[in-house]
């Protein structure tokens, strides 16, 4: 059973608003860099980059982070996720980094992403943009930019589909299959 929370237009409006918020808070695009967390955070971050270019006429630095190697549950014996490349080809020093991810849940992914980022250098600040905040944090992590807050049941799964990865834009709640 699925119920749609955001459609294509809703997503587009959220991206639009967040781009404005980022620019407003950082007083322009000058020292901003966007870093998308694999997999869907990358598409989200690229949309923000595009929007910011549209608004300010500036192409901000962009990077891709695979946080697999920084996860805190790898050693516990989970099945290995497929490892993909991390690509951060600009220097972090003095930059205000906006980490981008599709869904914020326990906060553990973001913790891993911050750790990974720090291995690449010392940014001026790290901010967090998410398309969906579904609550249930397990770590003291708070987003700076949120597309939509969606209070959810812990057992349910929030699924974000983005055109670049999935061929359509949609956010919905997935009931547990075997619940």
């Amino acid at each position, binding site marked *: 059973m699925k119920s749609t929370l955001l459609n294509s237009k809703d997503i587009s409006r959220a991206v639009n608003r967040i781009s404005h918020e980022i620019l407003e808070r950082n007083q322009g695009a000058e020292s901003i860099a966007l870093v998308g967390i694999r997999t869907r955070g990358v598409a989200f971050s690229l949309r923000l980059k595009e929007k910011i270019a549209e608004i300010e006429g500036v192409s901000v630095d962009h990077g891709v982070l695979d946080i697999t190697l920084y996860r805190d549950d790898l050693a516990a014996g989970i099945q290995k996720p497929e490892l993909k490349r*991390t690509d951060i080809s600009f220097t972090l020093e003095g930059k205000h980094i906006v980490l981008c991810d599709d869904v914020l849940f326990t906060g553990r992914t973001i913790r891993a992403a911050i750790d990974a980022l720090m291995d690449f250098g010392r940014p001026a600040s790290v901010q967090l943009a998410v398309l969906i905040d579904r609550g249930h944090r397990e770590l003291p992590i708070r987003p700076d930019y949120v597309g939509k807050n969606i209070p959810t049941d812990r057992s349910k799964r929030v699924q974000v589909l983005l055109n670049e990865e999935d061929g359509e834009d949609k956010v919905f709640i997935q009931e547990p299959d075997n619940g």
Partner: protein
Amino acid sequence: MSLSTKNILGAKDLNKQDIQQILDTAESFKEISTRSIKKVPTLRGKTIINLFFEPSTRTRTSFEIAGKRLSADVINISGSTSSTAKGENLIDTARNLEAMNPDILVVRHNCSGASALLTQFIKCPIINAGDGAHEHPSQALLDLLTIRSHKGDLQGLKVAIVGDIRHSRVARSNIKAMQTMGMQVRVVGPPPLIPVELERLGVEVSSDLSKSIKDVDVIMVLRIQHERQNQMFLSSLREYSNYFCLTAEILAQARKDVLIVHPGPVNRGIEISLDVMEGPHSLILNQVTNGVAIRMALFYLLLGENNANPN
């Protein structure tokens, strides 16, 4: 996503999917070695023991760096093969190590089958870092990674492996792994250094270097061991060199895009000439870099397996 085998004892135990997965994973790990902080916390708290019964700098260091870049604790132990006639040494050492709860054991030993024997006494995954003349799978995997990153695809490539095939675990692992990946293997060397019935593995055997490198995509040159000339296998290194040294002159007959790999350490001027070794076709240093990535991938893929926990 996991390998079909708990231990990496030989290329013969790896299927095509395993090899692909290891190469893909290693490809992603290459980037870490280019960072200024060359370390990720993935295997924090894990213990890797390098148990080496044979002297080795290159392979042991490669495994050690790979483990450390993944934040594992890496311990090097040099086993001695000289003591005790009955060889309880290996089993005793293994039992002792088992009691220390390692998460991965990397073993090099001068007896073929030594790492297979250890699996009877050790619960953690074992990586064979070379057992006698049997196998050295991580070397074959790094060779494949090196070749693949230059050729794009391994399927259909032709390889000539030149040198002492008889005593080479690198050759055996490469023959298996390359055949699994759909490559055609030819071995080239003086007949005393070619083991019997090798053709039955689907390998072409030749002792004419110039002729057999003409149509290949890759030439793998093996190290010739000095002590072989005293064992009736070789008349002299000088004569060996006359027929099997890969020189610029011979290389001129090969394809323009031919790649040259060598598992090292190199005897310059004996199996390969200095100009060829340092020339544009040679990938010898790439191999060393790729070795670390392959071993990181093996550690990563072996740890925490068999324990699928979705979400």
